[in-house]
């Protein structure tokens, strides 16, 4: 594999980690209320983010993300400062303008649909996007991501059913990021099968279990999967085993938890194979650590949303509505 690409994997994984650690620290320092994210999932996220056909509209991939996909955003080139704005809920947050949680992105220029907390709903939305893509003859794929526990929500099954209607199969890449945990509930307390992706088999969806902690293997498998979906217009499921290194969210304390660290593992490999020296790798960490801190310092200067912005975007202006057509208001306030 290309040396530059390998170093790019490393760079983006470290960038993501530095950003996550900064956001975790922001909870402790009172710069944000709640953190949720993906330390331990950097490898598969970076591998996917680099291969997304990114852009706005039906010709590009649609992304229905989980809340642990910050690594994808970094790989797609979204500035590191923006997740920090989301985390601090400033008016400058380009995703939600201070409305939603960290990790809950929405970014139209890259077809990142709003990440919603209610687990699993993205799987039921994916078929609509993919149907539009397929009908338009687009090469875009709808990429939908969710955790192992969340596959028990109804929409996971809906996604399988709607993606495989006979003769109307849809170009959806399903990605399960299996860290074998819900918040605190172990996978083996819930699931009769080892691989959630087995559930896709009766639907005739090709499935593949991968080591999501290996950026190179992930990159190859995801590349192949994306290529297959683009070519066939049919669904594919990747089941990636990943780590959860800092607990579920800031609500569960964000202490380091046991689990394989994909970055440490990859660094060992890069050093062993003579791609980089420990010092070079360490410098990457330091650079992004500093960048994240500087970003926070800038964000601290940015304003919070003004209270009156509450009503903004409740409705889009409408030419056929005589009451809320131009402006939405609270009828009980008598305006």
């Amino acid at each position, binding site marked *: 594999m290309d040396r530059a690409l390998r170093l790019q994997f490393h760079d983006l994984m470290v960038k993501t980690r530095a950003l996550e650690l900064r956001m975790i620290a922001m909870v402790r320092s009172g710069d944000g209320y709640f953190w949720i994210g993906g330390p331990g999932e950097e490898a598969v996220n970076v591998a996917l983010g680099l291969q997304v056909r990114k852009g706005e509209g039906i010709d590009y991939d649609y992304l229905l993300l989980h809340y642990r996909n910050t690594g994808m955003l970094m790989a797609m080139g979204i500035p590191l400062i923006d997740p920090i704005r989301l985390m601090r809920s400033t008016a400058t947050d380009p995703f939600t303008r201070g409305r939603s949680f960290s990790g809950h992105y929405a970014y139209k220029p890259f077809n990142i649909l709003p990440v919603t907390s209610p687990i699993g709903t993205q799987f039921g939305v994916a078929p*609509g996007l993919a149907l539009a893509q397929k009908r338009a003859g687009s090469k875009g794929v709808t990429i939908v991501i969710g955790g192992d526990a969340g596959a028990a929500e109804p929409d996971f099954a*809906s996604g399988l059913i709607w993606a495989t209607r006979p003769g109307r199969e849809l170009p959806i890449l399903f990605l399960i990021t299996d860290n074998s945990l819900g918040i605190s509930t172990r996978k083996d307390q819930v699931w009769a099968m080892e691989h959630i992706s087995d559930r896709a088999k009766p639907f005739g969806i090709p499935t593949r279990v991968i080591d999501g902690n290996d950026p190179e293997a992930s990159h190859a498998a995801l590349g192949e999967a994306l290529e297959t979906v683009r070519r066939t217009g049919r669904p594919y499921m990747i089941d990636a085993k990943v780590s959860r290194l800092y607990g579920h969210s800031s609500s569960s304390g964000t202490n380091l938890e046991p689990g394989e660290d994909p970055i440490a593992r990859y660094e060992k490999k890069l050093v062993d194979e003579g791609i980089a020296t420990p010092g070079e790798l360490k410098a990457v960490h330091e650079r992004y650590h500093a960048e994240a801190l500087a970003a926070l310092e800038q964000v601290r200067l940015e304003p919070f949303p003004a209270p009156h912005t509450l009503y903004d975007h409740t*409705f889009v202006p409408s030419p056929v509505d005589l009451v809320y057509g131009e402006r939405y208001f609270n009828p009980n306030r008598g305006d």
Partner: protein
Amino acid sequence: MATMAQAIRLALHHAEREMGVRDIFGQDVGPPLGGVFGVTQGLETAWNTPLDERGIIGTAMGLAMAGQKPICEIQFVDYIFNSIDLMKLAGNSAWNSAGQFPMQMVLMSPTGSGIHGSIYHSHSFEAWAARLNGWKVVMPSDPITAYGLMLAAVEDPNPVLYLIPKALMRVEGKELLPEEPDKKTLKAMIDAPLGDRGEWKPRWPAIPRFITPIGQAHVVRGGEHVSIVSFGRMLWVCLKAAETLQQEGISAEVIDLRSIIPYDWKTISKSILKTGRVMFVNEDTDIVNYGEHLLRRTIDAHFYDLKARPRVLGGEPVPGIGLAETLEDASVPQSGTVVQAARDMMEENT
């Protein structure tokens, strides 16, 4: 005269031909059935879905976010309750993304009682719907409005819930749609035949576009003494009551709200200022009822303008509507109830 089912079908045809609609879908919406009430017979873009309301609404949301202007159906509004979370997401998408992802879609669904539908085919939804911030909610009471409101719903760039009073589905309108063919011709042109429909194709009359704006009520009957605000099937119950009242010398103004969210407060307010007496009539259950919101607005604005205590008439707060006619009738307001309430208001303070 077109029935409401026909009028909606004509509007949907207009939407798929002229307004860029490419998907009209739901359970049994496509061929061969064209909907359990025949609303979607013969439409080019109508298709059948899995028996999965969540998938229907989710897919509509996906299509909407891809700019496709989907129209989906929940076969009976009684079956929407496993998807309220998705409706909330559809309603919050623009807001949550600070305007990046509006959700232009129409969800249509038959609602209300009046066809002996018993516990699972008689449900009303207006109070629930009105709580779904980010959605607009409309309900026609006659075919011509059904047509105009559907075009408005399709045109509006927000999610619009289009509730169809199921008991009015086959009732003919009093007013013709513009350029509507005569009844028999229309039927021959657009109603699917019984039996084999394999070869059948509709012939569509050219109905010109017209819009019934969202948020515009209609004063169906002018009056001086009491204002009766209603919509959907209950409007006709109120109109019947108004006729009885007329014979007793009580002149009732009857307002068809048409839009539930947003609602036309100006028209209601003007009427209240004229009559000093108002009642809000609907068939949804009456603990936390949409009429109670209108009452609250009335109290907020006109507490000191009222000549009599304002009323809300709603359905009985029980878990369902019973199948037996005795039970159904006792569960939702009847014209006699409306008449009595108006009489009581007239006698109050005299």
